[in-house]
């Protein structure tokens, strides 16, 4: 009873807090200074049509590196926590997969993969980028696992892809210091013609590596949580 009252008081307190915070918020009518700068000169400085990509990859590239690292750490801790467990593959009685799902997954998985690659190669032109593309590729892996639940996905392959793409991401960032203005600067390659697929300098290449890394990390989380993973 005391606890319920406490929770109620806490929630009312939060409502009050938010009301005070947002009481005079009536919506923006123009951009602030930073966003205005990005909007005006982003396409000249970075060459990306998608300004969100410009912010994620170059203006705040270091943040992105940190976030990819957090994701890597959480994937590593998940695999570490579930490593000791012994699993017995043989005594699982699963309901057989429907033949339709099996056939459909064989067509849809390559389509999902090529769509994911489209999303992260075109990250500088259309919505999308490494994070979305990685999630879509991991969803393709989920579809494989749904059609064949007993299938083993090689952890070694996933970790190799992850290490190589992570290393390349950092190396490209360092190359930005050496050959251009700073860490993760994209002007190593020429900016190209605005709005075409080969433009915005290094952004598509960086996003390919980010996409592969995020996809490998999410896949590693999924395969670690999967029931029958006997080689850790």
């Amino acid at each position: 009873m005391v606890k319920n009252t406490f929770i109620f008081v806490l929630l009312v307190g939060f409502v009050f807090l938010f009301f005070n915070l947002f009481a005079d918020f009536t919506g923006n009518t123009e951009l602030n200074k930073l966003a205005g700068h990005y909007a005006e000169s982003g396409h000249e400085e970075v060459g990306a049509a998608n300004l969100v990509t410009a912010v994620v990859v170059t203006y705040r590239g270091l943040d992105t590196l940190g976030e990819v690292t957090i994701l890597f750490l959480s994937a590593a801790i998940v695999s570490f926590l579930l490593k000791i467990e012994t699993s017995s593959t043989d005594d699982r009685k699963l309901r057989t997969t429907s033949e339709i799902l099996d056939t459909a997954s064989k067509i849809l998985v390559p389509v999902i993969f090529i769509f994911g690659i489209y999303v992260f190669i075109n990250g500088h032109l259309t919505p999308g980028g490494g994070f979305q593309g990685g999630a879509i590729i991991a969803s393709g892996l989920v579809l494989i696992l749904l059609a064949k639940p007993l299938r083993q996905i090689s952890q070694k392959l996933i970790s190799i892809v992850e290490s190589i793409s992570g290393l390349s991401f950092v190396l490209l960032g360092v190359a930005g210091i050496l050959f251009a203005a700073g860490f993760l600067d994209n002007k190593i390659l020429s900016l190209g013609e605005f709005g075409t697929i080969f433009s915005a300098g290094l952004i598509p290449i960086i996003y390919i590596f980010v996409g592969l890394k995020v996809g490998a990390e999410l896949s590693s989380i999924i395969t670690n949580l999967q029931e029958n993973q006997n080689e850790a």
Partner: protein
Amino acid sequence: MINKILFIAAIIMLLAILLTLYRFIKGPSAADRLVAFDVMTVSSLALIALIANFSSRVIYIDVALVYGLLSFLGVIIVSRYLERGL
């Protein structure tokens, strides 16, 4: 004229989504709720395409593509869990 008809279409779709919400709240078993979820995702896909038309940006269709390609995964995952196949 075209926009007015499309507005009416969007309002009818919203009504349909609210109707499926009734089934979602009431639906006796988890499987019934899953059917409601499926209908909701399909209807909201049409809604996203309409929003893209109202904003006249072709790039919004990309979101609908992700929705259309991946939203069936959720239904399949829950079904496979219910029938002990995961």
